[in-house]
């Protein structure tokens, strides 16, 4: 019999988790520090949250960040879903591998390169940098993540469902709307949540593509840290950690529920067969 928690397992689990989360935990703990000094514990307090939430500069940056995240996530999800549908549907055509490779390439592209190339593009076409350039840039790199999430679901999507809809009188578009989209909806939602969080915590690409008046929260934090870490930043960071964690957990819950349901279907089908 395997003992689930022997000394060795327990130790490696503790070290692994500590390695991953200790730095974050410190930030969270020190965000509740009463003292002005970041590294000296002065008792529990939530005052830095109050101060951070009253800092107009931070609030403005947070609002811009949320708007960018919302719009870019929506754009990325729509584009990512459509391109994936085309890729999965199109079958084989000359240059298919190249094309699908190009959709996923930004996943492994250094962010600095993506940011720089987008900056050059925006300069070349004379687009004023600001809210929209960051949004477009975020949509560009989040789109490939969205594609990955949606394509894994579409790969197991039974194409005959769509044929059945066509057979029963749907046009191709209404078959997609009434059958395909509802069936892959959980994957689309989780793609959106993933894109949203990616946009929320991006610093590098935003730095390259932002302009005056469009400083995002991560940029603001980064520039503040260079002037010295304040407990206020810990508080803000903690809130950011909270939002991102919530987003990622929701995305994985949505995915898990969908997976469970699919397994249920398979079991039902297997039991019937």
């Amino acid at each position, binding site marked *: 019999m395997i003992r689930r928690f022997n000394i060795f397992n327990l130790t490696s689990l503790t070290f692994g988790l500590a390695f991953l989360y200790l730095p974050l935990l410190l930030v969270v703990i020190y965000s509740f520090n009463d003292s002005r000094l970041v590294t000296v514990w002065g008792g529990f307090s939530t005052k830095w949250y109050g101060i951070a939430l009253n800092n107009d500069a931070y609030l403005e940056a947070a609002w811009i960040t949320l708007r960018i995240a919302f719009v870019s996530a929506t754009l990325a999800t729509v584009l990512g879903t459509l391109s994936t549908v085309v890729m999965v549907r199109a079958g084989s055509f000359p240059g298919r591998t190249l094309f699908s490779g190009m959709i996923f390439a930004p996943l492994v592209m250094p962010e600095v390169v993506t940011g720089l190339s987008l900056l050059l593009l925006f300069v070349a076409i004379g687009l004023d940098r600001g809210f929209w350039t960051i949004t477009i840039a975020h949509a560009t790199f989040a789109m490939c993540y969205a594609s990955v999430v949606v394509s894994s679901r579409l790969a197991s999507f*039974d194409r*005959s*469902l769509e*044929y*059945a*809809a*066509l*057979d*029963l*009188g*749907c*046009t191709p578009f*209404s078959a997609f709307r009434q*059958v395909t989209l*509802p*069936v892959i909806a959980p994957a689309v939602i989780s793609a959106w949540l993933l894109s949203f969080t990616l946009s929320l915590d991006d610093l590098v690409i935003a730095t390259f593509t932002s302009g005056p008046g469009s400083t995002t929260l991560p940029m603001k934090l980064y520039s503040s840290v260079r002037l010295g870490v304040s407990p206020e930043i810990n508080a803000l960071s903690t809130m950011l950690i909270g939002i991102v964690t919530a987003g990622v957990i929701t995305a994985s819950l949505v995915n898990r529920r969908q997976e469970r*349901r699919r397994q*249920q*279907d398979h079991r*039902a*089908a297997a*039991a*019937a*067969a």
Partner: protein
Amino acid sequence: MNFLDPASAASARAEPATPQAPARPPLIRFENVTKTFGSFTAISDLNLDIQEREFFSLLGPSGCGKTTMMRLLAGFEEVTSGRILLDGQDLTGTPANRRPINMMFQSYALFPHMSVAKNIGFGLKQERWKKRDLQDRVDEMLALVQLEGFADRKPHQLSGGQMQRVALARSLAKKPKVLLLDEPLGALDKKLREETQFQLMDVQDRLGLTFIIVTHDQDEAMTVSSRIAVMKAGKLLQTDTPARIYEHPASSYVADFIGNVNLINVELSGMEGDLALARWDGGTRLAIRPQPEDVMTPGARKTLVLRPEKIHVTKDRPAEAHNVNMVEGTVEEISYTGSASTFLVRLDGGMLIRAQEANRLLTSRREVDWNDRVWLSWRAGACVLVDA
């Protein structure tokens, strides 16, 4: 040999509704249809007429083009050349959603996010039926497949057999002229499959529809169909009633594909009264009652098609008669399948013959055993000749 005449097929099946009166145009006509995918030819210059109210089977090994024919009919693929007529009208260019043809999918393709009632009503909703009429038709369909009370279930809450019935109800809800069934019973276990076969025949008969079924299961095709088309590599080999396909196959391929068979190469030697005489390899003389359409040229090489169940296995030499063939051999293998036993008998010439006897006696009383010397005998009228 000419087996392709639908009129003769009609007379072979004694059924009043059989619609092959020569005056009526076919419901579906394939006219020189060819379908290629790149360099692969799935259907090659195929001609076929299907009459109204037929239960028509497309039978063949996987890759023979039967599914492609169905997809061409449904409108999921377009013909490369030739045309398909429905009621005399060319279907070319009509998209799937505007054809009065519905399909039941092999995987059932039930919409997982919709209830049973929504699934069945889906096609009607696309035609913007009034809510009341739609409800009535859905109820009618639920009653037809005996699933009253399941309207609000989701597909994943159903058993395989129930899903199959929902899929049938959904494909019938629009009362199509033609229903296509792609391996409709493939996912069901044997017992359920047999029940469902009879249910399908009953539904087809009651609604008076034309059913076209694609299957690789010959028993299924034999059971349900009024006519069967046997396909191979994009061509029709034979289109006929189940009985004629089984007993009068047009080629040794068809004979071999449908059921078990002994194929014996013979050389015709002449006629004796109304029986043809043939020599089997070494010289065993065989008598065969020829079919009216057989052309008997002495010296021609033919293949004798002999079904195992037509052969009698006895320990004693049967009485000599001019219309009985007999050979002697040794029992090499006996396989017992409950209702029947199959004997593999090695003839003295070296050839292995498969013979089947119904188990009229209990196995303990069986007189033929392994390694016994036995006589195989069959009547001249129990076998047919095909071109070698």
